[in-house]
């Protein structure tokens, strides 16, 4: 595999509806932003790119098949190679990795990953019906197909197993919405309190409207390149680009029907799923105690695919302790509860410790005022951009949006891009992006790292 660098990115404004443009023109908005950031003209970009990967989740929302090629031709990228990637909520993260593969394999030197979703074509509850078709239509969908309901079932089990509280979940919503106050691309920029989150309308107990991301229209685009590709782009731009490298990728899967997920014993957990940091006397004692209380893994409370994806990415990036070695994480918080569950999958804490971690301050930014009493200082900000909950979740764009925001963190260009320095993670050198589909069926994790000095 060849080294792969992330060169540039662009996002459209995420909004509930963008009737002013068709999906192709929204992709063009993100594409043009990624080109302008390099200081290039579209004509030069078209010449530099060897091909693309297109990312979008649903054909139902637009009632348009082969939307990918329509974006490709609108951008002026035909007849260059391209294909479409689909993997539910993880579509964007998978697309990023497909573009990485295109470059790492030697197939392309410069590849653009672009993704979009325009979900405003149908009313919200019809949209939920479309999304719920991403569950088994023989056994699951007809019983009351509703993704918020599926995640709510997972979290009641998490609460029962570990004592996780609704206030801890609400704290995630407060954090992510407040971070988004300083992200002009975000859809929902709100100064909330824990009380606001709990008092907002109940959707699927215990998740309220403010525990759940919204549907959006939006697009994102990211450039990936080999060393040769990087040199080619630098020659065209006449400037040296920050070296942001993809140092690890990982993916995992789990059964579509949540009911089918296994409940493995302690030994199997240690043999197949435990992380290096958990393989200590203390870690083993902690988990032996959990199993003694009846805990089984992953059940419906944990995302096994998130664990295996993260373990693979971290291993490849040489990360043993993600909490200590990552400067920030942009993770798939479609629900506040799934942010907490993902802390545990990624090894930011042990299983069962996600609730306390959500509220103790370590995943917050030191530079943002949250109106909360936080016991510990910021160490590893999670979703400094505002995450899906505040930025919106135009499915095919979401995982690429995370890549763009992570790139800007590592370039130290958040102040320029957001017009405010507050969301810049100080001296960010290494970050992870995490993309997740249907109750943890597909999960992708990619590690991005700043190679050179890092002075902005």
């Amino acid at each position, binding site marked *: 595999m060849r080294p792969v660098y992330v060169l540039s990115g662009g996002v459209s404004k995420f909004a509930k509806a963008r*009737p002013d443009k068709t999906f192709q023109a929204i992709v063009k908005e993100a594409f043009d932003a990624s080109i302008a950031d390099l200081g290039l003209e579209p004509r030069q970009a078209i010449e530099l790119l060897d091909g693309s990967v297109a990312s979008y989740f649903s054909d139902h929302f637009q009632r348009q098949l082969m939307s990918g090629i329509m974006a490709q031709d609108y951008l002026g990228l035909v007849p260059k190679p391209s294909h479409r990637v689909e993997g539910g909520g993880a579509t964007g993260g998978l697309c990023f990795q497909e573009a990485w593969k295109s470059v790492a394999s030697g197939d392309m030197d410069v590849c653009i990953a672009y993704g979009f979703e325009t979900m405003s074509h149908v009313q919200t509850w*019809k949209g*939920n019906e479309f999304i719920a078709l991403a569950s088994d239509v023989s056994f699951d969908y007809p019983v009351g197909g*509703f993704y918020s309901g599926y995640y709510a079932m997972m979290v009641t089990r998490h609460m029962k197993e570990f004592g996780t509280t609704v206030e801890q979940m609400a704290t995630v919503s407060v954090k992510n919405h407040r971070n988004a106050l300083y992200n002009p691309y975000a859809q929902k920029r709100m100064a909330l309190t824990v009380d606001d989150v709990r008092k907002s309308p109940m959707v699927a107990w215990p998740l309220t409207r403010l525990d759940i991301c919204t549907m959006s229209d939006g697009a994102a685009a990211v450039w990936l390149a080999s060393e040769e590709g990087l040199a080619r782009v630098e020659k065209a731009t006449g400037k040296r680009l920050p070296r942001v490298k993809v140092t690890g990728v990982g993916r995992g899967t789990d059964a579509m029907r949540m009911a089918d997920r296994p409940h493995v014993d302690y030994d199997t957990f240690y043999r197949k799923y435990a992380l290096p940091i958990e393989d200590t006397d203390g870690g083993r004692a902690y988990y032996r105690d959990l199993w003694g209380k009846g805990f089984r893994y992953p059940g419906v409370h944990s995302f096994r695919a998130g664990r295996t994806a993260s373990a693979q990415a971290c291993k490849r990036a040489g990360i043993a302790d993600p909490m200590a070695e990552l400067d920030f994480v942009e993770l798939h918080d479609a629900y506040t509860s799934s942010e907490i569950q993902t802390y545990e999958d990624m090894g930011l804490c042990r299983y069962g410790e996600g609730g306390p971690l959500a509220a103790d301050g370590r995943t917050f930014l030191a530079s943002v005022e949250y109106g909360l009493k936080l016991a510990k200082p910021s160490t590893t900000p999670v979703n400094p951009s505002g995450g899906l909950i505040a930025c919106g979740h135009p499915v095919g764009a979401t995982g690429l949006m995370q890549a763009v925001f992570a790139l800007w963190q590592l370039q130290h260009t958040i102040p320029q891009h957001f017009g405010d320095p507050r969301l810049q993670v100080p001296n960010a050198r290494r970050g992870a992006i995490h993309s997740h589909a249907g109750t943890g069926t597909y999960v992708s994790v990619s590690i991005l790292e700043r190679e050179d000095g890092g002075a902005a």
Partner: protein
Amino acid sequence: MSRNDKVLVDETLEGAVVFNVPFPSDLKGLDQMAPIILKHPYHVDYIHSYGQDSPFFAGLANKRLMGTKCTACGQAFATPRKACMECGAECEWVELPQQARVHAFTVCHFGSEEFLPDCPFVLAQVEFEGFDTLFLTRIQGLDPTAPSLDWIGMKVGARFRRLSRLKPTDVWFEPL
């Protein structure tokens, strides 16, 4: 009033039927035109086969709950699958007990359009003695306005629709 308190107006797909729109004499004005938005209905009848899972639905019509068991490794699936997820071997049909326990649940106050008229309803994963996996169902007979984590672990029994619709909702559970 904080932004959170704003009054939400129900979304509808109502709109006006129009047969023409204004057009500027100066073509430069076209770029300032508001987008034209149309309503576009789409209906379809799918012919869905339950295929190898059909005996499960035949079971529901006869007030029986059918799961499967792996003929090689013994993994017992409360929601049937004919191929074992653990070892890949063939699974055979076995009958489930009609009592279960609540493993996880939620109360849906909203839902997909198709299920909005049913809200609020209790959606749950239930576990069966002797089976390794769970089953998705609705629980009737619990107060949806007073959910409690104590519902987890509760004993529930299967009830069947008298006239089968050959859907997984032919069965639901009630507290015992």
